[in-house]
């Protein structure tokens, strides 16, 4: 039966080529845009390298120090007792506001207080980016450097093209080594391979390249050179107050909820004493899941789960609009296309087709049409992804087109096909057989 439907679907598409071309253009354009959104989300939120454990990590990007101010209100009650003036004084206190300061962490502060979290299997402290200038043959080159520890290469799964990250001993020896991205290798050395052992000069230091990686391609990890944070001076490691430019990523063992890690972090934060000379009296470490952190970077809210909800709502709204508007348009086109075939529906019903069979046929035909549009849309999306990545239109974000991307794109196509086909098919399946046969176009 489905072979018959398939044949018919193609013949119907070929019958009115202009109509089909317009419909396919609409479908493929819509799907191409949706696929770009899917690709962006897959890049930022999917399980692709270097974040292959996105569901399991807790990110601790910022530290907030807070001081609560208290207002005291005095009440005077005067009275005369035996001609003497008596004044009763009472006072109440209430919260009047707070001052707060937020920044990333000092490396020493992290190592001292947040190295030993019971629910964590591995962790890394790193400074995600510092800007430097480098000069290559007299041309200025902007470098984005990350200062990382040796565990950085264990917690994150970078795709190494050459060499590898540095281990604990190299880190402890404060060796001047670097892992660089292919893009930087190309800009600095003029080639995308065979760069191991070469020197790269940054901030008056020359680092020996020991690893070459693909770009992380994430909007919040922009670095193109990764060097050991052990080379930093004590000044660069952060202030005594705890503020600096480092952040932490924690990875619990499989099966341990990230909520437990969050509870542990909060507990440790509550235990850290504030020095009496400090301007603040409360320390609040921020901690988020990967997705909350991503949302926090776009829609900041003190409560990161709220940021995530807002992001999900806006994202669903955008995707919904992108699906809904073309779907409505396609429904309209489909209704007129199916109306032309009402006498065919009449014949099919007369010869024993049930309403479900009629609906199945038209939804199937619509899915064939949508998948065809999907293939064209996919080709457009792949070209656009290539052009966007090549022109660096999204900065350091490298859009991905992997298996998940294809899977989600297929899902989007099917959803689009079913949504835009179901209503016209349902309407037409309800048409009375005699009325359908009177539409004598056959």
């Amino acid at each position, binding site marked *: *039966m489905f*072979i*018959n439907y398939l*044949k*018919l679907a193609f*013949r*119907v598409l070929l*019958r009115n080529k202009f109509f089909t071309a317009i419909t396919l253009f609409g479908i493929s354009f819509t799907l191409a845009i949706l696929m770009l959104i899917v690709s962006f989300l897959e890049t930022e939120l999917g399980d692709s390298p270097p974040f292959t454990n996105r569901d399991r990590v807790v990110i601790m990007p910022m530290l907030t120090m807070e001081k609560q101010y208290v207002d005291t209100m005095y009440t005077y009650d005067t009275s005369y007792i035996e001609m003497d003036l008596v004044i009763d004084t009472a006072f109440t206190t209430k919260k009047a506001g707070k001052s707060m300061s937020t920044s990333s962490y000092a490396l020493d502060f992290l190592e001292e207080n947040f190295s030993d979290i019971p629910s964590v299997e591995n962790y890394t402290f790193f400074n995600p980016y510092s800007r430097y200038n480098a000069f290559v043959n007299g041309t200025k080159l902007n470098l984005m450097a990350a200062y990382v520890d040796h565990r950085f290469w264990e917690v994150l799964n970078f795709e190494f093209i050459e060499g590898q990250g540095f281990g604990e001993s190299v880190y402890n020896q404060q060796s001047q080594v670097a892992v660089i991205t292919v893009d930087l290798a190309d800009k600095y050395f003029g080639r995308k391979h065979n760069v191991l052992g070469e020197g790269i000069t940054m901030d008056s230091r020359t680092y020996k390249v020991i690893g070459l990686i693909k770009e992380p391609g994430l909007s919040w990890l922009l670095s193109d050179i990764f060097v050991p944070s052990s080379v930093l001076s004590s000044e660069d490691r952060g202030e005594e107050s705890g503020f600096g430019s480092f952040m932490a990523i924690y990875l619990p063992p499989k099966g341990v909820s990230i909520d437990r890690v969050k509870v542990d972090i909060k507990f440790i934060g509550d235990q850290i004493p504030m020095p009496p000379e400090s301007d603040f009296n409360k320390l609040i470490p921020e901690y988020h899941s990967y997705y909350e952190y991503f949302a926090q970077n776009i829609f900041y809210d003190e409560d990161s789960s709220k940021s995530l909800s807002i992001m999900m709502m806006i994202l669903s709204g955008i995707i919904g609009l992108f699906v809904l508007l073309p779907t409505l348009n396609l429904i309209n086109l489909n209704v007129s296309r199916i109306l032309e075939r009402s*006498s*065919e529906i*009449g*014949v*099919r*019903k*007369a*010869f*024993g*087709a*049930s*309403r*479900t*069979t009629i609906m199945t046929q038209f939804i199937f035909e619509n899915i064939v049409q949508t998948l065809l549009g999907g293939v064209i849309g996919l080709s457009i999306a792949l070209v656009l992804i290539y052009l966007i990545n090549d022109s660096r239109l999204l900065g350091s974000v490298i859009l991905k087109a992997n298996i998940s991307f294809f899977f989600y794109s297929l899902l989007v196509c099917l959803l689009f096909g079913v949504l835009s086909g179901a209503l016209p098919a349902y309407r037409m399946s309800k048409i*009375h*057989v*005699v009325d359908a*046969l009177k539409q*004598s176009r*056959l």
Partner: protein
Amino acid sequence: MIRLENVNKVYRTKTIETTALSNINLFVPKGEFLSIMGPSGCGKSTLLNIIGLLDEATSGTIRIDGNIHSNYNSKAVARFRNAKLGFIFQSFHLIPDLSVIDNVELPLLYRKTSRKERRRLAEEALESVGLKNRMSHFPSQLSGGQKQRVAISRAIIGKPAILLADEPTGNLDSVMGNEVMDILLRLNTEGETTIVMVTHDQNMAQKTHKLMRLYDGSQVA
């Protein structure tokens, strides 16, 4: 085989009530060829649609092969039509995007018949109307008479007990019309298929076993 008792059909709108059929009583035994005649708009096609379970009577009882279908759901009625009834329409109603053989196979799509078996039966049905050499043609490539023969093949492929033909020769010239009529007569005599045919053509009607005349929705003979 077909029994109608006190069948009425009334079309109602908010302001108008139109009686299409009034108190129709009819019995067609197995293997009979009945023709229904009458002027345009007298209710012939409505009656045929009611017999074919394509339309519902306003009142009265319809028994086909001993079954009363008024309480059946639409799925069961569709199944019954597929198994027991075959339809031939004046304007052929072939699906233009399907080839001749795919059109003929159509009723078997709604049965659990294998693709191979469908092909075999379709070829057989087309051979019986002399169109085996037109299997891969499309309806637009056929003459009117050929289209109607394809429509007959489609109607008989499922070996229905009853064939309902709504002016099967109405769109054909007399030669083609006679060819189609001969096929119907052969199906009736050789296959013992019960046939109910609506026609305007007295000559065609005279070739059938029984003639029923309708006038203004009522049975006059």
